[in-house]
């Protein structure tokens, strides 16, 4: 089980409890703060983090994903990555592509804001477990995650277009 999947289990369990309403409000509100800096969200994340040994940016990634999960009302769709969901939304729109490219370039200060914009933009849920896994490796110097996102975005485009062509033919 990946770290993302474990955290998603945790969020799912939280979602099944009465406390979810308050938690969801706290998470959504936390988006106005730097990740991990909003005290009211802490009770819902810290117990999970206590089980591991996390660096600061990894802690922030958990808070961020929890907040985005709340923003989408817990709509977790296995396998639907953010990049793919963005491509579906874009359908040739240059502005969505621009945002996607900006997201790929995001540094530590920008990532929370741009991710929030992007997640708000797409319709339907996404795979939050994958999102966390990717965020945990987002700042690795090889930037494998960003490269894969680009492949998912542009790759999805080409294969859909090809399918369309096949149908037309």
């Amino acid at each position: 089980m990946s770290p993302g999947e474990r955290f998603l289990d945790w969020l799912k369990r939280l979602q099944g409890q009465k406390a979810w309403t308050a938690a969801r409000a706290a998470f959504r509100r936390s988006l106005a703060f730097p990740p991990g800096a909003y005290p009211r969200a802490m009770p819902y994340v810290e117990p999970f983090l206590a089980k591991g040994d996390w660096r600061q940016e990894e802690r922030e990634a958990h808070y961020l994903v929890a907040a985005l999960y709340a923003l989408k009302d817990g709509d977790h769709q296995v396998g639907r990555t953010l990049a793919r969901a963005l491509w579906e939304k874009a359908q040739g729109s240059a502005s969505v592509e621009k945002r996607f490219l900006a997201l790929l370039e995001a540094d530590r200060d920008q990532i929370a804001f741009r991710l929030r914009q992007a997640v708000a933009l797409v319709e339907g849920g996404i795979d939050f477990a994958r999102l966390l896994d990717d965020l945990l490796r987002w700042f690795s110097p090889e930037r494998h995650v960003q490269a894969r996102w680009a492949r998912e975005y542009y790759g999805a485009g080409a294969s859909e277009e090809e399918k369309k062509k096949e149908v037309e033919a």
Partner: protein
Amino acid sequence: MGSLEKFNLIDEPWIPVLKGGRVVEVGIGEALLRAHEFARIETPSPLEEAVLHRLLLAVLHRALSGPRCPEDVLDWWRKGGFPQDPIRDYLNRFRDRFFLFHPEAPFLQVADLPEENPLPWSKLLPELASGNNPTLFDHTTEENLPKATYAQAARALLVHQAFAPGGLLRRYGVGSAKDAPVARPALFLPTGQNLLETLLLNLVPYTPEDDAPIWEVPPLRLGDLEGARTKWPLTGRTRVYTWPARGVRLLDEGDGVRFMGYGPGVEPLEATHRDPMVAQRLDAKGNLLVLRLSEERSFWRDFSAMLPRQGGKVAATLEHAENLQGELEDEGLEGRITLRVLGQVSDQAKVLDIRREVYPLPSGLLTPKAEENLEKALKMAEELGQGLKHLAQEVAKAVVGERDRGHGRSPYLEELTKLANSLPLERLYWHALDGAFPRFFARVEEEASLDLWREALRGAALEAWKATRRFLGTGARHLKALAQGEQEFGRLLGELGEEVRT
């Protein structure tokens, strides 16, 4: 005429050969009479390698009045040497014509060429910097011109007479000189396990009538050459092997040569003669053109163009070596042969590069199966190469972004081209194939060779693509370009696979 007869090329050491792992210099006589003792002619210069072989071959053809047929060559191969007496007799007969310095008939030179306006001897070699030659390997300047030894000067003289590119001369009534006989073509030199085998492999059957090397005709004088008065048809094997393309007179300084008198040579007239070391290909209009070396591509990429399948003509030496190899294998004799492709790459009067490419010579090269495989393999390589070139342009376009192209040579298009050319994609691909081709070529007539080649193409393309990824970096635009490129790349590799099945 101050200089005496000096430095006879038959006896004096000047041909560098490899003997027992060491380079020693020998004269023409020793090189021919003890050829089986020497591994090969060993010189860093591909042009020297070519001309020294051509000179030895010219002597052999004349001394042996043949070979009249391939059986003669086989016979000498089996005996492990040339008939010694005819060679000795012949060399004795023409001994007077092989002096590097001679008052009447210096070897391949003009005795009465004035000493005024001498040129530095380095003008003889394209690889030494002088005048406006591009500096290839050397930083000699005319002010610090080193003295050439007699041996060096003799080799340089041969190189110049064979390879001098045509161009402005402005001496003795001749405005511009024509190309020396092999200034442009690629030369094919099959080589065996020792110098004897190598000479035999290149000793293409020959009729001695209507031909004479330079030492069998009266020595040329300045009066013959002024105003391009002497014109010879470019024909006759040994005549062409020893062609006096320029008038040269090396000036002896007692222990070496620094300067030379220089002027026009014999002007070549078009003839139907085909140099045995030269191959031809068919151009789009149906004309046969000599196969040349090219600056930016390795020679193997043009290999199939000279095959009969595509209307070309392989070099006679290559065909001869192939036949010989076949005969030897039938007799259970080993004849492992490598093929050397030698020559210079030139742009008009400028020599841009000097090449020596070495390939194994497979025994079944001139069979229909091998020709077909070779043709298919090269076509596959070119097509994938074209695909990668296009891919590099697409990647560049994606990085730079779509913009209004404007008209003509817009800065946008220039930026695009520059970026595309800077990508290592195509270069690394061909570079990897340079290494892989000899392995394929050695097995070209086998059924499995094409699969081997396909794997090589795939590997080369993958390596090149990986390097391109690393090269381009990880900015968002670059990731986008690579993600899109990867699709195209996958398609290219896919096409490669499909051709297998057909």
